[in-house]
């Protein structure tokens, strides 16, 4: 089984290949990305202060 994150059309997808050969590509939530980006930004600003 293998997993990888791929970026397409401005969004992130998780691609998973199962042992039987089934391939699944799932769109990752956009909100999480925004949230994590905001958190990083906030932390950086706090560190600057």
């Amino acid at each position, binding site marked *: 089984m293998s997993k990888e994150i791929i970026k397409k059309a401005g*969004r992130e*997808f998780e691609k998973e290949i199962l042992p039987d050969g089934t*391939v*699944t590509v*799932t*769109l990752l939530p*956009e909100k999480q990305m925004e949230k994590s980006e905001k958190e990083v930004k906030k932390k950086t600003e706090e560190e600057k202060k």
Partner: protein
Amino acid sequence: MSNSVSYGKRGYLAFKKETTAGAAVYPDTFAEFLETTLPNPWNIAKTNTVQGNRSLNTRSYIGAYEPAELEVSLPAEPTISGHLLNGCFGDETASTLATGIYQHDFQPQNTQDSYTLDFAVGGEDYITRYFGCRISKLALAINDNRADWTVGFMAQRWFVNARLTVAIATGTTLTLDQTSGITTSDTIQVLDADNQDTVLATYTLSAVPTETTLTTVETIAVSLAVGDVVVIKRNASPSYTALGSEFIFTGGAEISVGTSTNPVDNTTATSDMTNFSCEFTNNLEAENAATGNDVVDRMPSRINLLGFDVSDITLSHLHANPDFVDALRSKDSLGLRIKFLGDALASNAAAAASLTIETDGIGTASVTVDATGEAGNDYNLTIVGGGAALAAALSGKNITLTLDAVAANNTTTLVAAAIHALTGVACASTGSDLVTTADNTDMTSPLKKNFSGGRDASEKTMLRIDIPNAKLQPIELPISDGLITEELKFTSDHDRAGQGTGNLSSMAKVRLRNATATY
């Protein structure tokens, strides 16, 4: 009128699809056939009285006539087979692959076409006509390596001959006891009732005004008596359809079996099947009603179409391992496919199969299989709504597109991106729109659709039979001094997930490729 002894080789079979069921048309397609019998079901019933006479057959009367049931066997080849499949399954879906190259898809429909059939017997100048004919059975079997059809017809009505009921020596009106079955394209002969080798007159027709009168083009110029016999003259120069080569089994066919989800789309070629047969049946019921007192009113007034079945599906091979017994034990659904390839049809290049996910015409997502070839048409895409996230999955040749419960995440762009990231397919989007389950109304329930347009290079004529949901029947292994031949018998289930409009099509699908545009 010839008085030579009848000889089968000089006869013919001609047929034509009717516009109105039970209303004869003039057959103009001629087919070669191997064997048939011509029924004459003029039923004479008996009244067995219990007193006055010891005879058990004291009085006879005219019974209700059963429908005429015929069986015709003929070689399976690419041209005439289309007529038979159209008659058995209902109207085809025809598509043009290239100029002069056509594909015909047959699935059981809820309506059935009727046909007029003419049989001429060698040595006779006239024909027997059966009309309102429905195909009750279409069976394919391998006979000395050749694939043969056996076709069962149920004929609502028939015309063998009629009798004049009014003497006439002039004018243009013949009065007789049956005109049903005669068309204005026919030529009729009037035979002497006392010597039916003698032709008294031959007429073409301008009209068939009633059930008991005919209008001739030529003026009647001989004396015709009551009881003289009217027959339909045979076609003097039958023009046979150009036939393709017969489909053959060894050296011309491939059998493959699928075991996974959508098994007929995911088959694997077998190398050890030594025989195949299957039979498509339409249960038909003739109805005799009180419609009048002419001869034709004694025949069935209609034929009702009842159930459809695929039966007598058999495959034979030498027993090597318990795989089929295991499938039987677990009631697995198997996909069976037999593909006959025939003559060279085109010198085309190979093409890749594709599928466009419709989105109201505003935006599309088009999926294309990476590899070119006909096998790409087995790829299928199912749309599922209400998922936790937009996702595309590929297992074998099955693509499942799960739409996000949040509609905004199902844009054509994102759908195309997800599918494109799978293996073996590419997907491109146009426009900007949301993909919804409701958009894809052309997909059968569940929302599944096969790819199309995949072509092998240099295509040949083809007859392909798919049994998508075959269920094994109990297997007996005949142990004796020799190799063990396993005869596998199947029934065809309809797909329960496709209850409703799609369920019949899941029982059998037949694809024919040839140079004939439509049937």
